[in-house]
């Protein structure tokens, strides 16, 4: 069966071998170009490495090469005859967790690497939890550097057991374990001859075949208006189109729809992609709709169906991951960005903070600093139109922007 595009991220603690693994995957699947290989061979020789250091395929920044670590996510594109892939190679270092969050927010699957010698570390926990928080339903735990533990099955099982007991508290429907050596290529693309006790698939084989249920919601019609198109040309002076990306459900020409927040009803009179008319629109298509009535509708508003509406609320129950180096100051006003809408917002209450190693709730120290994950209650200045993140990623997610620095300081998901 033909499988669609798979977007995945590599995660795990610093130096566990994520970048080396990606390099190995690209190298052994013969998807590296000659000039790229020449270039990393040359760089490796200059640095006195034996052979080509495959991590240099994604660690492309000068500072990354100097320090031998990944700083920001690198995206790589490759295809095998079976599937197309978009890889995000994330940094393991705690300081760059926000870059990992960036990569994870668009991934369907996470590969968590664990150094067989070191076992689970704090960043292993953090990255696993963030992947879960962001709704990644498929996980592959690669126990790496098996060459350094003499390909020992006992050590592998020990790590698998520890991870299982940690992850039993997260609901991740699909977890799989593979013993590998990213450096030497065992069980990455080619089956290892040194771990005959393992009889599961190689990593690539698994990635090619894993069935990822499309993350799209085709039930609940949601069309956040992104931009209003009003041509100033004579031919189309009366045209008024509402442009946006369908965030949920299927809209058809002729459908009765309700505009929120106004609550006014109207019908969809046309749907177009560019100048091509279509009969219907579904996620994640970018379309333009025209409506039967001249109603007040602009960016930030939403078209939905009468009998299936999102929650309209000024009080949000959310999980946030704090991304800023500056700790959160209680009572600070933020701009909350949700779909195409912006609203002033304030964090009313920190309910608890998460102990990332034990997954216990911390309720006595509620100061939120960089990389903390917390459950909070947020109050917005105007109602926003939300769904539960687990039901709809597009209408269940938001970011907080600091109105002074204008930086994105938190990523949030809404549970209703």
């Amino acid at each position, binding site marked *: 069966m033909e499988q669609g595009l798979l977007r995945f991220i590599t995660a795990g603690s610093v130096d566990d071998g994520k970048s080396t693994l990606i390099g190995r995957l690209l190298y052994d699947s013969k998807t590296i170009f000659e000039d790229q290989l020449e270039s990393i061979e040359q760089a490796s020789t200059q640095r006195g490495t034996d052979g080509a250091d495959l991590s240099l395929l994604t660690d492309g920044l000068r500072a990354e090469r100097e320090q031998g670590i990944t700083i920001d996510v690198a995206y790589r594109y490759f295809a095998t005859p079976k599937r197309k892939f978009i890889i995000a190679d994330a940094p393991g270092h705690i300081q760059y967790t926000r870059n990992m969050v960036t990569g994870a927010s668009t991934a369907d699957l996470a590969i968590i690497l664990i150094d067989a010698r070191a076992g689970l570390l704090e960043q292993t926990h953090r990255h696993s939890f963030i992947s879960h928080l962001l709704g990644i339903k498929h996980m592959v735990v690669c126990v790496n550097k098996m060459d350094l533990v003499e390909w020992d099955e006992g050590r592998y099982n020990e790590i698998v057991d520890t991870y299982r007991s940690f992850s039993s508290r997260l609901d991740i429907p699909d977890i799989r374990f593979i013993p590998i050596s990213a450096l030497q290529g065992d069980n990455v693309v080619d089956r290892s001859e040194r771990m005959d006790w393992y009889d599961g698939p190689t990593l690539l084989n698994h990635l090619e075949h894993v069935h990822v249920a499309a993350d799209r919601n085709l039930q609940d019609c949601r069309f956040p208006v992104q931009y209003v198109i009003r041509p100033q040309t004579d031919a189309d002076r009366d045209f008024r189109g509402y*442009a946006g990306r369908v965030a949920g459900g299927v809209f058809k020409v002729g459908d009765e729809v309700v505009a929120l927040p106004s609550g006014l009803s109207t019908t969809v009179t046309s749907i177009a992609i560019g100048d091509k008319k279509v009969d219907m629109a579904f996620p994640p298509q970018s379309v333009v709709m025209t409506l039967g009535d001249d109603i007040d509708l602009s960016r930030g508003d939403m078209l939905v169906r009468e009998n299936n509406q999102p929650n309209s609320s000024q009080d949000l129950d959310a999980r946030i991951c704090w991304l800023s180096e500056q700790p959160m100051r209680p009572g600070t006003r933020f701009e909350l960005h949700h779909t195409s809408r912006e609203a002033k917002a304030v964090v009313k209450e920190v309910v608890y903070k998460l102990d990332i190693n034990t997954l216990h709730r911390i309720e006595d120290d509620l100061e939120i600093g960089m990389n903390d994950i917390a459950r909070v209650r947020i109050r917005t200045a105007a109602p926003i139109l939300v769904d539960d993140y687990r039901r709809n990623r597009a209408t269940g997610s*938001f970011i907080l922007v600091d109105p002074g620095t204008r930086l994105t300081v938190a990523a949030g998901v809404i549970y209703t």
Partner: protein
Amino acid sequence: MSDYNMSHLDELEAEGIYVMREVAAQFERPAILFSGGKDSICVTHLARKAFAPARIPMPLVHIDTGHNFPETMQFRDDLVAELGVQLIVGSVQELIDRGEVTEEKGFNASRNRIQTPTLINTIEQHQFDACCGGARRDEEKARAKERFFSHRDDFSQWDPKNQRPELWDLYNGKHQPGEHFRVFPLNNWTELDIWNYILRENIAIPSLYFAHEREVVRRDGQILAHSEYLNLRPDEKVEKLQVRFRTLGDLTITGAVESDADTLEKIIGEVAAARKTERGGRMDDKRSQSAMEDRKKEGYF
């Protein structure tokens, strides 16, 4: 369910259109950086689709090195006329004449580097707060790190060690006065995607991309177009070859490949089988391991 399937190209297109609309909605003075190459032609095509039936609500900006392929200039002017959009030209020659930049000398001299101050100058002069470009993550290792909305400080510099987080498709275009964003709607496209899209959408591209006979010079394993701007070394000779270009940049640095691909189908076949990246033919990237990163930090495209 199968009624609701989208092809890979459909998904990339939907993403690109979404990004272009976000730019128009979030910024006051956005622009499209138009080089005349296939990638910026695709960005322009996405913009056309994003705002139809209205005109593209932002100008095209061309940074003119003065060392252009004549075909590219003709193509640019025709496209601008067809779209009815404004064209803004930032001229490298003008900056040289005003003494604001110094031209490189020697056999490998190119105006690539001084495009950057010209671009920055143009951005400042017109106070652009967002510039959409055709760069793709698969092109080069520093570009592999790019965001969709890539922040530039008030010196137009990129700080790759401290990029803003970018969550889902909630692009945060907020910035301080004087700062701007570079926006990359084609981030997730590969070279092959671009060609397949050009074929599917029947997009016009300059004839230089198709195989043609041309006077060229071989230099350091590259094939460069012969022109009045290329300084010949004593031992170099001009020959005629059947070539095409995989990227279009400045005349003096864009390497050609020997090819007889004179249709889009043949080009796609060639690209699919290629063993070298498209930028493998560009002298500007070959100058050092981090040539692209260094130029990007300074404000290059």
